[in-house]
């Protein structure tokens, strides 16, 4: 459903005059690679490559980046490694990798309840996808509060419900001197509600909030 949400957001931004590039991470969606090939390093390279591609294709002088969940964490980490973004939108960001893995494990356990034959314990899988020990280790090390995205001009955190980790990230980035805003856009249900996450991505309030934020200043 993230595909549909980003397609709608891209359409909204395009109608506002933005050049928009959507892409799938290596090893996901339509992008090349096997599902179990993904690594944090590869995906950070993907962000840099996408940013360069957008600059080349649009001749835009500056770009903004919108990422959701783990994608938001990757966008923020890319901005710690020199990818420059006029604005960085962190949509329901994964703040702590270890907490994210715990959430995925809870979701996996819930999904497994409907199976007659569960995933064997020795299989490195989470919520229907391969999840290698190496990927688990690198995702587990993510801590956005500890690594400020210094090459982002402004940061917006958007969430559908109040969460302590989003508030903590907001406070941490503020204390480090970044220009950061936090917008809680109540959705019913929230995108972080494990039981009904798909429905949330079909609603529009977060999309409107993100589009409005980016439209304040015209970047690609």
């Amino acid at each position, binding site marked *: 459903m993230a595909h549909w949400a980003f397609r709608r957001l891209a359409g909204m931004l395009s109608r506002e005059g933005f050049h928009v590039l959507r892409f799938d991470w290596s090893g996901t969606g*339509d992008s090349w690679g096997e*599902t179990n090939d993904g690594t944090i390093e590869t995906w950070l390279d993907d962000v840099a490559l996408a940013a360069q591609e957008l600059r080349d294709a649009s001749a835009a002088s500056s770009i903004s980046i919108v990422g959701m969940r783990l994608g938001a964490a990757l966008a923020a980490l890319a901005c710690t490694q020199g990818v420059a973004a006029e604005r960085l939108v962190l949509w329901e960001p994964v703040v702590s990798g270890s907490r994210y893995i715990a959430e995925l494990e809870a979701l996996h356990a819930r999904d497994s*309840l*409907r*199976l007659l034959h569960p995933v*064997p314990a020795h299989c490195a*899988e989470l919520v*229907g*996808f*391969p999840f290698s020990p190496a990927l688990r280790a690198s995702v587990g090390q993510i801590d956005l509060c500890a690594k400020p995205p210094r090459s982002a001009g402004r940061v917006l955190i958007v969430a559908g419900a109040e969460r302590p980790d989003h508030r903590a990230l907001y406070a941490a980035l503020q204390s480090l001197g970044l220009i950061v805003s936090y917008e809680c856009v109540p959705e019913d249900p929230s995108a972080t509600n494990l039981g009904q996450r798909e429905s949330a991505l079909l609603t529009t309030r977060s999309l409107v909030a993100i589009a409005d934020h980016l439209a304040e200043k015209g970047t690609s």
Partner: protein
Amino acid sequence: MIERAIAFGPDARLVGILAEPDPARAIASAPAVLMWNVGIQHRVGPYRVQVDIARDLARRGFVSFRFDLSGMGDSEVRQDNRTDGERALADARDAMVLLEKRRGVSTFLPLGFCSSVDAVHRLAMEDQRVVGACFIEGYAYHTTGFWLRYPLRLLNRERWRRYVEHQTQKMLSLRARDIAVDPLREERAVMGSVFARQYPTQRQFGADVRNLASRGTRMLFVYVGGDTEFNHRGQLAEMLESRSPLDGVELEYYASADHTFFRVADRLRLVARVGEWAAHTFRGSALAASVPSSYSIGT
């Protein structure tokens, strides 16, 4: 293998991904494989399985095209007053026109999964260019054999294990309300509200499949055994009311897989089975299996 994103159809409003084999491996007379949205998911399919199938088929020499039906994924809505079913057929025919022009193919093999079998079934019945069809978790009907085996559920140890787990979760949910108490009930409620499908009658289904078989259309039916309407290998023959096997009809039954092929190992088996079936049916002998060796295969 090369993959390209292509806009096609009226005013180029539809979007798909064309997977082409290396020229040296391409099977000249093979049908092109068509896949489209399963439920409301975009063209990649459940757990990206349609991407894996397309790439496996390309390695075996087949052209395939995964696309979004109008109004779904990246495709725009059609500006007409047709029904969803009619639009799906129109979209599939636009994809066939594209592949005829671009690749020179004249025959097709649509692959349906769950709800997407609706359009595969109709397309196969209405279009003579369809020489093969794959139905994954498609139409199923409760036969006498199904009901005779139904009580055996009570002897299934895995069902009792799951029942105990559900009851445990129910109790725990008093403390953790964000975890679904009864995922099956919840899933059925969502499915019921989102998907309203009209099955052909069993008699019509049987007649259609027999017609297709007599026309020479090759078919692969894949069913699973976990919580579905299909519970034994003989059920397809009962559904078809056919005492002897139909020429060109193959069945694969995965007793331990679930409807969405949640487990990676089940998907790997499915991808390999579809690829091997396509290869031996339309080439004569299967090319080397191309399942990624780095996947961890469970039991």
